């Protein structure tokens, strides 16, 4: 069952969830919220134009902007600036959909499967949020790619994939097979960690060999959920700083994404996802299938009604929650910001106090812990002095922001926050540089045009002056002619 040998991962940490934690694997479904909020922002945070008007009634699955579909049928009631689950705490233009409760779906009847996936607006549910159709199209260009179904949980405390596999193992395997046929590959490598025993048993019960899926169990090392470390463990290839998985012919898709692809091929648009809600001390966790656009506070009240532990945690700290996992999540005020494809988990309850950092003693513990072979203390020094060139030399782009270096740092330095700051500073500098080169090109041809125009004007003036000079002589002749005429004709 496990014939592919696992390559060692240099670095990473063996994190452990508290042993007496009980993960409630039953898949609850959140009630359809009366108002759904749809932020019109794509993966790279550029604002999109809506292609629906106010008051227009839409069906579930109908496109409201490029790559964004309505999660339920209803009427578009407002187009306002509204908060969204992002560390920037900024407001983005958002469509407000008043759901009419009938949940009528628009039929997806495109012939070509890729167009179906695109119509169903399937996004990566693993936490990164790539558009899946683009990923698959790029992989197909590569000829026969290796398909990896990533069922490894991103971080401890998140159990949405685990619950999905325990509840719907057969659906998951069928989804894998339909994806295998779509990509034209022979088999899929189903990566799962060996501490997910219940899910493994559920999958084994449905004989995965029939679906050409070979299950690869990996010993638990965080962050195998991230694409680069997982590919290194399964194939031994360490992605270079400018390579993505598709460049080495690997399609790495989260197990929930594979299921939503399968639904899209059957004609059901991707309108919901499983959100794992966990208490901050990781002792209690429940999984709820939620429609996109559901406000977080509505989801929280529903979760509190199901699980008393979540309710008590909510009372202790009802103002802020952590969106995302315990390591890469960010603090957010509990408000009506909607659930999106990238919100895979919510942490409830009082956060741990952040220790004050002290000076870095260059002990290189973080170098040992880094799963993608970087030197975090050199990146840290470059980030602190905002020296983007040195950060590039130490391969800042390869950092997957997993947080391992934070955990082992003896000086409690928030290394990952520094790397996020450095990545954003670098992205902003690149934008400035492209704008500068464009401005330079425009100014070069501006100057060239102005000089050419000035030249032409000068030549035109010279020509006119020459004519004027000729006319002057002709003026003398005219005057002479007038004089002749005058003295020939006596005054009458």
């Amino acid at each position, binding site marked *: 069952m496990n014939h592919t040998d696992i390559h060692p991962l240099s670095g990473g940490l063996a994190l452990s969830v508290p042993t007496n934690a009980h993960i409630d694997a039953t898949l609850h479904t959140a009630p359809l919220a009366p108002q759904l909020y749809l932020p019109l922002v794509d993966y790279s945070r550029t604002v999109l134009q809506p292609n629906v008007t106010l008051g227009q009634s839409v069906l579930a699955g109908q496109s409201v902007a490029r790559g964004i579909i309505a999660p339920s049928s209803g009427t578009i009631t407002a187009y306002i600036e509204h908060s969204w689950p992002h560390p920037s705490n900024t407001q983005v233009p958002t469509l407000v959909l008043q759901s009419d409760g009938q949940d009528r779906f628009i039929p997806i009847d495109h012939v070509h499967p890729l167009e179906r996936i695109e119509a169903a607006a399937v996004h990566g549910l693993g936490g990164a949020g790539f558009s899946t159709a683009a990923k698959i199209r790029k992989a197909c260009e590569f000829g026969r790619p290796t398909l990896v179904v990533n069922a490894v949980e991103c971080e401890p405390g998140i159990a949405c994939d685990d619950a999905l596999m325990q509840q719907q193992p057969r659906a998951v395997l069928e989804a894998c097979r339909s994806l295998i046929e779509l990509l034209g590959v022979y088999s899929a490598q189903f990566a799962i960690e060996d501490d997910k025993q219940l899910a493994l048993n559920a999958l084994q019960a449905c004989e995965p060999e029939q679906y050409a899926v070979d299950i690869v169990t990996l010993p638990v090392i965080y962050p195998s959920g991230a694409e680069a470390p997982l590919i290194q463990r399964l194939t031994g290839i360490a992605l270079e700083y400018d390579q993505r998985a598709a460049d080495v012919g690997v399609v790495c898709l989260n197990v929930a994404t594979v299921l939503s692809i399968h639904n899209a091929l059957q004609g059901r648009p991707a309108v919901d996802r499983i959100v794992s809600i966990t208490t901050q001390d990781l002792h209690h966790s429940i999984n709820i299938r939620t429609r996109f656009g559901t406000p977080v506070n509505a989801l929280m009240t529903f979760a509190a009604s199901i699980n008393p532990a979540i309710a008590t945690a909510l009372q202790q700290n009802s103002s802020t929650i952590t969106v995302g996992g315990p390591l890469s999540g960010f603090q957010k005020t509990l408000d009506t910001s909607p659930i999106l494809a990238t919100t895979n988990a919510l942490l409830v309850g009082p956060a741990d106090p952040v220790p004050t950092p002290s000076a870095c003693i260059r002990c290189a513990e973080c170098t040992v812990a880094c799963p993608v072979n970087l030197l975090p203390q050199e990146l840290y*020094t*470059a980030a*602190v*002095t905002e*020296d983007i060139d040195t950060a590039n030399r130490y391969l800042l782009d390869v950092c997957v922001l997993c947080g391992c270096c934070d955990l082992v740092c003896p000086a409690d330095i928030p290394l990952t926050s520094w790397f996020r700051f450095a990545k954003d500073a670098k992205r902003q500098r690149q934008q400035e540089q492209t704008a500068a080169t464009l401005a330079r090109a425009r100014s070069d041809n501006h100057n060239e045009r102005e000089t050419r125009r000035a030249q032409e004007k000068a030549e035109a003036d010279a020509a006119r002056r020459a004519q004027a000079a000729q006319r002057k002589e002709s003026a003398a002749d005219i005057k002479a002619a007038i004089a002749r005429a005058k003295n020939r004709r006596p005054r009458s």
Partner: protein
Amino acid sequence: MNDWLLILVSAVFVNNFVLVQFLGLCPFMGVSNRISSALGLGVATTFVLTLAASLSYLLNQYVLQPLSVEYLRIVGFIFIIAVVVQFTELMMRRRSPLLHQVLGLYLPLITTNCAVLAVALLTTQQDNTLFSAMWQGFGAAVGFTLVLVLFAAMRERLDRTDVPKPFQGAAIAFITAGTLSLAFMGFAGMT
């Protein structure tokens, strides 16, 4: 064989021109803020020194001593060094204009670099052959370049440290150079 090695080790470590004999300090302080410029100046100085050492040896052996005009020694050596430096500057302007711009004043300054003149004078005083004069010049230059590049790497790291305001820049560089020469005293009395 091992006396060539001995000359090299003594020129690079034991009586290093910069940190033990304190010669050639102004380019050492001036150009050592970036490794690439330090390496550039180091290579240029090595080329100049080796050529200057051998040419001055020839000048001394076949012109000054026969004509017994040893007192013209300083003028002659400076003339040779100036010629070689001007030649290096031309080559560098052609090969890498950026490095030439970065070195800027410090390239012609090699002419007045006391280490270069010291090497020329020292090699001609001791009784050695042409090759040993060139080898001593080369050793001195390698010592100069080694220490210059090491110091440039340290200063680049110093740029990123939180040095108190009054000590930033040249002050902390001088303190570091002092500690470095303290370390080099360990080699005292080796050969």
